[in-house]
């Protein structure tokens, strides 16, 4: 399996939407074939349309706020004593996470297609919060599907969605987390696709949703490339980009612009959620060698049993608590362009403590997974190596969990 140079990865799928001939595709009920095809036609047209891109950039700049900061973590670097540790503070974006890029683009597409309602799924609540913000901004009615367990553990984001006028629909089936929220959202779309647009909250789902999300979050690496050149005069000789991976939207966006560089120069490290240290359950299909299966319309590595039933996951971070993984990451793994590993709940918490102790930065539990591995590995690297961690979410939403696990001091 090989990546092509000079062609955006989102456009490297074959006719049926498979990357590397086997990841992705459109495993959907017949009813959704037409709306998906319509969306594909619209997206393929608009992503080449200069006016549309100008409109996107206008909202990215004035409303989301670009660029987000690129900062050196001086104290942490000193403490760790190895590579230079930097962070791209994507949580600076309006709403506090990268999900706003995808939500904004989906709302712009929905407007163009004349749809009045938009539905979406959410795990940590960020995708839902951002979609509710964007829907409000663009005058669309908004419905958010969220697992009952996630509603319980991510209250601040639930309150934000409601404040933005979105209807939050709790999902009680299965494990009551993101996987069930995505299923329920797809079911809602099956029944309402004539009036409603759907926003899949990550680089997962039928191929077109993977592409739209990857196209949207790539804003992160576009900014980073400029910032690196401003800071170092050119792209550093040894650059390591660490990012947490749940569905894979922030990591893909963080890496996309660097795809064509040799991996010896720009290495990508994806950190999955290893779950509690003592539990066998995890949300790390790439790290722990899960088999290929079909989940939510796409072929991907996914946690499942021998019959093909999707397995329950477990992670402290709701945003990474997903049994599958973007087809884009399956492709990057098998093409050996990116390297994937996992951090446990405990390791993420430890990293959170360390980062907040030394820096004025409060990464949410998701990027804390990435920090954990970055800190561990940076120790052994030379001072000329540039480690960048995408701090793609803010810990405000994790208050309750942090208080329970680490005490009031850290919440």
């Amino acid at each position: 399996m090989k990546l092509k140079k000079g062609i955006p990865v989102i456009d490297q799928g074959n006719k049926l939407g498979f990357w590397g001939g086997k990841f992705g595709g459109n495993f959907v009920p017949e009813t959704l074939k037409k709306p998906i095809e319509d969306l594909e036609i619209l997206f393929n047209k608009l992503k080449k349309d200069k006016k549309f891109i100008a409109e996107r950039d206008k909202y990215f700049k004035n409303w989301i706020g670009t660029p987000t900061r690129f900062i050196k973590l001086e104290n942490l670097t000193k403490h760790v004593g190895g590579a230079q540790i930097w962070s791209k503070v994507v949580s600076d974006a309006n709403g506090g996470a990268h999900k706003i890029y995808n939500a904004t683009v989906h709302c712009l597409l929905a407007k163009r297609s004349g749809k009045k309602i938009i539905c979406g799924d959410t795990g940590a609540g960020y995708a839902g919060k951002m979609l509710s913000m964007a829907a409000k901004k663009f005058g669309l009615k908004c419905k958010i599907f969220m697992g009952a367990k996630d509603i319980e553990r991510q209250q601040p984001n639930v309150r934000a969605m409601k404040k933005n006028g979105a209807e939050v629909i709790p999902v009680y089936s299965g494990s009551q987390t993101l996987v069930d929220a995505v299923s329920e959202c797809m079911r809602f779309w099956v029944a309402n696709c004539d009036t409603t647009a759907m926003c899949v909250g990550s680089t997962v789902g039928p191929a077109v949703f993977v592409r739209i999300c990857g196209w949207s979050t790539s804003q992160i690496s576009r900014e980073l490339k400029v910032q690196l050149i401003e800071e170092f005069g050119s792209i550093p000789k040894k650059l390591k980009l660490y990012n947490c991976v749940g569905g894979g939207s922030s990591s893909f966006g963080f890496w996309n612009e660097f795809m064509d560089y040799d991996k010896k120069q720009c290495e990508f490290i994806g950190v999955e959620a290893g779950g509690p240290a003592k539990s066998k359950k995890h949300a790390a299909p790439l790290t722990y060698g899960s088999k290929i299966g079909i989940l939510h319309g796409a072929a991907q590595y996914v946690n499942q049993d021998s019959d093909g039933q999707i397995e329950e996951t477990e992670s402290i971070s709701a945003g990474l608590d997903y049994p599958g993984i973007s087809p884009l990451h399956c492709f990057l793994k098998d093409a050996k362009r990116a390297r994937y590993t996992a951090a446990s709940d405990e390791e993420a918490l430890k990293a959170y403590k360390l980062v907040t102790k030394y820096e004025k930065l409060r990464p949410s539990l998701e990027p804390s997974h990435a920090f954990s591995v970055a800190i561990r590995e940076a120790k052994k690297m030379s001072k000329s190596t540039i480690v960048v961690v995408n701090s793609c979410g803010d810990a405000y939403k994790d208050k309750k969990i942090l208080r329970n696990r680490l005490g009031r001091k850290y919440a």
Partner: protein
Amino acid sequence: MLNPIDLAFKKAKKENRPALLTYTVAGDSSKKQSLVILNAISKYADILELGVPHNTPVADGSQIQTSAYRAIKNGIKIEDIFWIVKKYKKDKNSKPIILMGYYNMIFQYGEKKFLEKCKKVGVNGLIVVDLPWPENKSFTKKCIKKSIYFIQLLSPTTSKERLNKIIKDSHAMNYFISMLSTTGGKLNVSPKKIMTNYFKIKKINPKKNVVIGFGITEKSIKSLKKADGLVVGSAICKVISISIQKRQNPVTNVANLVKKLKYKIL
């Protein structure tokens, strides 16, 4: 030799009525009970769809989801489903069996091995909800080589051009989804409108049998009786759920419902 599915349609046509197709979930609420249910409804139904329960069903409404989760919770495995079909087919009054499920289960089992096993136990047709045309092209060819019909789904959103292509590639039976909905939704389109759409599809190739499903209940079944066949699923799953809740016997309750459905279309 004709596929038993064709014979079932022929028989119904002779009796000047649509074929009655039922849907129950394999293993709901247990392996043995779902077999007893199949036996009990054979007298009234013409073709039996047997759901292969999956835990991330993207096209099923709450009734079928409840049945599927119940079956999985009670430990049903794919081998048990083959066992149910094999046992059922030993009954001399058995009817054609269509397995209905999601592609991942087939993919994990292996397409070839799955079809060999289907053939061996006596499965006559397959409906794979999330394997649409043209993605299903290669699999449907493998099915027909084993004399198993792959039943294509057609929806109100399927374009005319697409309908033509799908029907051209289809086997002798197709399934028209009555409305935009997951299974078991409330019928939100008039039966007249459904029949208009149905006849448009039928006209493309009158030789192929087309059944209508989604949202069909005791109330609405009569108004659709001009179709080649009608599928009732969620209404049956609901009866099983209610029976369990009320500590009644699901077998008799389901059999009674199917009997009533049959009389409505005579």
